[in-house]
């Protein structure tokens, strides 16, 4: 499967705890859930939309030009810009 981000390695200069990784490095179609840890505080708006710890989500697709990405969470889909979700970290349900 096409990796979502080509910049994944730049995005995460230091490894996160366990198998926690930035959302931007998650390939489309792979189920994952949000980690309790994030590299920077998760913006209030994302939390109000339901992006809270342990929530399962899946990246549905990236736009043809690579940004924004469409994410499915809590039974709905939303397109967000990579810059806005850069703080989110996820644990894939099966190791990639």
């Amino acid at each position, binding site marked *: 499967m096409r990796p979502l981000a080509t910049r994944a390695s730049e995005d995460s200069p230091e490894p996160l705890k366990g198998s926690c990784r930035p959302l931007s490095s998650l390939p489309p179609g792979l189920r994952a859930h949000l980690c309790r840890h994030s590299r920077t505080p998760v*913006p*209030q*708006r*994302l*939390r*109000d*939309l*339901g992006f*809270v*710890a342990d*929530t399962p989500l899946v990246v549905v*697709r990236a*736009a*043809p*030009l*690579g*940004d*924004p990405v*469409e994410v499915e969470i*809590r*039974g*709905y*889909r*939303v*397109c*967000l*810009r990579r810059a*806005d979700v850069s703080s989110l970290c996820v644990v894939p349900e099966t190791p990639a």
Partner: protein
Amino acid sequence: MSVPAALGDPADPLHIALVGSPNAGKTTLFNALTGARAKVGNYPGVTVERREGEVRGVARRIRLLDLPGTYSLNPETPDEEIVREVLAGECPNEPVPDALAIVIDGTTLARGLGLVVQVLQARRPTALVVTMIDEVRARGGRLDLGKLSRILGIPVTGVVGHRGVGVADLRGLLERAERWAVPKALPRMDDPEARFAWVDRVATDVGGHSPARDRRTDRIDRVLLHPLSGLLIFALVMLFLFQSIFAWAVPAMDGIDGAFGSLARLSRALLPPGLLTDLWTDGILAGVGAVLVFLPQIVIVFTLIHLLEDVGYMARAAFVVDRVMGWVGLQGRCFVSLLSSYACAIPGMMAARTVASPRDRLATILISPFMTCSARLPLYTLLIAAFVPAKRVFGPLGLQGLVMLGLYLLGALTALGSAALLKSTLLRGKIATFYLELPPYRMPTARLLATQVWRSASAFLKRAGTLILAAAVVLWALLSFPRIPVDPARSVGEQAQAQVQASLAARIGHTLEPVIEPLGFDWKIGVGLVASLAAREVIVATLAQIYAVGDEDDFGGLRDALASDRDPQTGEPSFTLATALALLVFFVFALQCMSTVVVMARETGSWRWPALAFSYMLALAYGASFVTYRLATAFL
């Protein structure tokens, strides 16, 4: 229907506010309840639209306030701040609503409930309206609205807004708003983690967790959003939109132009010559024509935009092009508006209504006059044909075509640069989270489409048409006063030339001459600049009048007259290649269009923005023309 005695004086209107997230179907519901008759205004001090209407078909007066869409009560934008203020009773001049109706989309129940929990903290009589219940059922979902009502402790009703299903029940519910329960105190859930733990439980309880995806939508999206075919289809759709505005609008516009021309000629033949006849033919008829001529473009642009929106493609187009628009601080939705501005800034600015973020919408409106609209083409064609040599430059590419292309690029690049400038200065602010939903594909209904197009067209006629007409009459007066006696020895063309030369506009032209002389412009161009405020293409007709070419359609005659015009004192050509290039550049930048100014004021709700745009564009035009003239005189 009778009014229960328990209710207050029926003359005393009940204030109900609609609260909901964008795309939840709030506005469709508002239109269904009020018959789409909204009183549109602005909240004091901010450019946020305030929409209020009377609910029709109910036994008492109910004022329904359509609050801006919001995803949460922790505001990020001025729109969302208004919602928070109204609910908290902190909005100046806005009565605290007697009751709240929360609108959520049944297919995305969990997210909707996240907002519901926040709104219930306001502790006002509240009801919940769940929209798109047909969609939930079609996808095999089953929502237990009764159970939801018991859990929340407020009335809950389901509707299908665009088909009117459930709207009658909702009317009945609204009539009883005073008896809606004040929601029981939920535990405070300021922390989103606690809130969504509760929401997940409730959503599971009422069966609202993830109805199956619409499989047809997924199949179509695999093609329309594919990295390769997605881009290709996007380009084709936009090309079609662009082309159809030109190809379909132009015949209709020519028809309107022709009809008003014939009407003017007919009037001249039937009415005795004189001031009143002139006012009628050259002032009023020309003014009405100047308003109606925009209608074909507005109707075509809005038919296509609403069609793409109703089908569900518009959000996809925004998704595809968002990254590019992001480079200048705008977003995907701005693209279609800017593309429409290539035909005419007026439908373009009106199309910016689909941009949800107020700052991005304002930036889009302000830069749209830079896009090369079709009204600039007559002058571009005339000057290029008269002064730019028809040389081959490279293969089939001619110098004339290259100059034309250069003018288009200059406008587009300046628009994008100005957007970046605006977004980093005047329209700077906390960057709101970009948020876009791709709705399921739907078959559009002709009736809804027709209503939407009619609403846009009639709003233009009512809100801008009258002002444009008035301005046209004022400009006519400038070109026609003071009157000079008719000299039978002169031909009609010479008489018109003499009249223009004696007019107030000519005086303004002479007064302007010292100011515009550094650009290489004489008083004749000055008159043309004044007249072109009516609409850019008018400069061609005015120049034809000044040069007494007779008919403005005599393109070759006017071209030759311009090229052979000499300064009476020096004998030098008064209209050179340098002058022509400077004038072209002036028209790339200057906001020479009162209709644009009027519509910009209407769309932004203030005269400050068009005043700013006018000054900014005039300053750019002056500076760029000056540089062009100096460079061209030095090097060409």
